[in-house]
Each structure stands twice: as C-alpha cells, then as structure tokens.
C-alpha cells in the first residue's frame, strides 16, 4: 500500500469529521455582528402611554434586557411566563420592543390602512395582550414598521439583547428564553457586567 493512495481516504475522514461536528450546529442561528457594539439608538412611542416616547439612552447606567415581542408571536407566549417570573424576582430590568404588532400578523392586511389607525390598533392589541398574560416589562415601545428591528438585526421574534451600562450590546439570545439559557447564559453575564461597571 503506497501512502499516496491513502490520500482520498484521509480527505474523506476529514470531511466526515466536519460533517459529524456539523450535526451539532444549528445552521439557522445567525450570530449578531452588533455584539460589543453600541446599541442602535431609538426614540419610539410607548405602548402604555402612546403620547410619550422613550429613548434607548434613558437606560444608560443600567444593565438591562431588550426583549423583542409581539402578540402574534407564538414562541413569545412560550417565554412569557419566565419573563413574568423574572420581573417578580426583580432579576434584571426588561424593556419590551413590540415588533410590527399589526403588520407582522399574517392574519391582518394593513394595505390601505393609515399609520394612525395602525398605531391605535397596535396599542389596543399590545395592551390587551399584556393584561391577559402579565406585564413583565419596565415598559414597552412600539416599532410599528419594524425599522428599529432591522437596526438591531432582528430576523425572528422573540429575540433578546443584553445591553450594558454604556449602552453596548453584549449578548443576543435568539428564540424564546428558557430557564436553562437564563441560568447558564443570561444571568451570569448580567452579574459579570454589573460587577465590571
């Protein structure tokens, strides 16, 4: 057996190794390039008091979470009880970004609907949902057209961003938060950032 004839076999084993490792990865999960970068600023109308606005910089000096949600989002319902428990225990302040509340809902057509009407509908739907399921948020703001979502690189709801005292994004969780990801990922990072600051 000459060594050169083993080359195809070795190449194949290398490939198989990668494929085996690939089975443990999730090809759909896209890491955010915004990690360790300043969170995009926004000033948006509040869901609880639509005539008032809230800006990201108002959270400066705190370690907090930005949770992207919508009433039509099925997976949000899954993580919501956990958020409510977190709020009860006052673990970390959470700001809600209510994402495309009306136009994101496949069941509703917004064609021809004025922005005011859409906003009013979003307020009504969002507030009712929080009343029904509990409101864990410090407050929620409304991203009616999803522009701020794009700024944050949101591609699926729910997503959660961990933001530090200086307003930098330090971690992004894609999909519903689970008790496990809360304990092993999010809370330790929150602690670390609080100590560091």
């Amino acid at each position, binding site marked *: 057996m000459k060594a050169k004839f083993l080359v195809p076999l070795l190449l194949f084993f290398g490939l198989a190794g990668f494929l085996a490792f690939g089975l443990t990865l999730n090809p759909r999960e*896209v*890491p*955010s*390039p*915004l990690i360790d970068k300043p969170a995009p600023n926004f000033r948006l109308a509040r869901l609880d008091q639509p005539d008032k606005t809230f800006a990201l910089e108002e959270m400066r000096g705190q370690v907090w979470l930005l949770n992207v949600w919508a009433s039509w989002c099925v997976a949000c319902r899954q993580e919501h009880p956990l958020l409510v428990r977190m709020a009860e225990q006052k673990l970390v302040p959470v700001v809600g970004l209510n994402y*495309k509340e009306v*136009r*994101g809902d*496949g069941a509703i057509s917004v064609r021809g609907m004025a922005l005011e009407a859409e906003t009013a509908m979003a307020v009504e739907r969002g507030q009712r949902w929080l009343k029904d399921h509990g409101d864990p948020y410090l407050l929620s703001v409304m991203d009616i*057209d*999803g522009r701020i*979502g*794009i*700024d*944050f*690189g949101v*591609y*699926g709801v729910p997503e959660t961003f961990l933001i530090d005292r200086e307003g930098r994004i330090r971690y992004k969780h894609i999909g519903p938060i689970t008790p496990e990801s809360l304990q092993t990922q999010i809370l330790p990072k929150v602690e670390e950032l609080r100590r560091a600051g």
Partner: protein
Amino acid sequence: MPADPKLLLAVRHGLAAGALALLLAAPLQAAGPASVPDGLPAATDAGVAPALAADPKLEADMMELSHKLRCLVCQNQSIAESNAPLAVDLRNQVREQLAAGKDKDDVIDYLVERYGDFVLYEPPFKAATLLLWLGPLALLLGGAGWLGWRLRRRSVEVATEQALSATDRERARTLLAGGGDAAPDTASPEFRK
C-alpha cells in the same frame, strides 16, 4: 475556375458565422421597440396598465442587489425571491436607500453591519474566506500539476512495462498451456505488478 481551398474554407466559415449570428439575433431584433396594439378593438381598451414600480430603473437596481442578499428567515432564498415579511422589509430598505442616492456598497454595508456576512450570498474576501475564494484556483493548479507529473511519469512507466511485457506474456502463456490451473485473475496481464 480552380479556387484556393484555404480561401474556400475561410469563406465557408465566414458564411456559417454570419448565418449563426443572424439566427441568434433575428428573433431578438423583432422583439425591439413595442408596437402600438392597433389590433385591439378600441372599445375594450382601457388604456395602459401602470407599472407597479414608480421608478422602473430603481426597481431593477433594487432587484439586482436583492438577488445577492440572503433572506435570513427563509430556508435558502434571496430577499428578491422570498415573500417572507422580513424579505419584504429588507427590499423596502434597499429601495429606500438606493432612492436616497446611496450606492450599492453603502446598502450592503448597512445590512452587513446589522446582520453580518451571513446576509451576503457573495461572501467577502477576507482571511476566513481565503480558502473559499482561492480553493478552486488551488485545486485547478494542483490538478494541472498532477496531470503534468502523471503524464511524464507515465511515459517512463509504459516504456519499462513494454520491455517487461514480452517475457511476462511468454510466462503467462506457458502457465495457461500447462494445466491452466492458475486463477485467471492472476494470469491476466492487467493484474501483474
């Protein structure tokens, strides 16, 4: 009249070339500027349908760029092909920014800042993609090098083999003639060392 065969050949090729070019171009020439639909009964003609895009040039640019951008929520489609809400949003973003006078690179940068290189169907050329972009070239050079080496080696091998084969064939013949007990496999001249 005796003609120069070379000239004849050149003329023949020239003619063939012209014919083929015409064949390709003819149906397209006919598809030139649109004709007035004078065959339509005027009574039923309700006028020209408005284009969906206010600015067709902008729309074409937007679509061209969109074909190179990956829809993040889809299985594997560009934002031009997908009708997922996020793809529609991103197309709107691209259109808006192009309309605002940004050039294509700016729009690409804008999206990469938010979604990362994942959003690009044409991966950027950088350290991590070095192998991707240069791999095919390396494979080609490697293949060509191997081919050259192989062909040179081969001519040597074949020469030695031919020298050997005369005696081999003789031996095979005696083996086969004498009892034919040897397994055909090993007697095959294809299978000797």
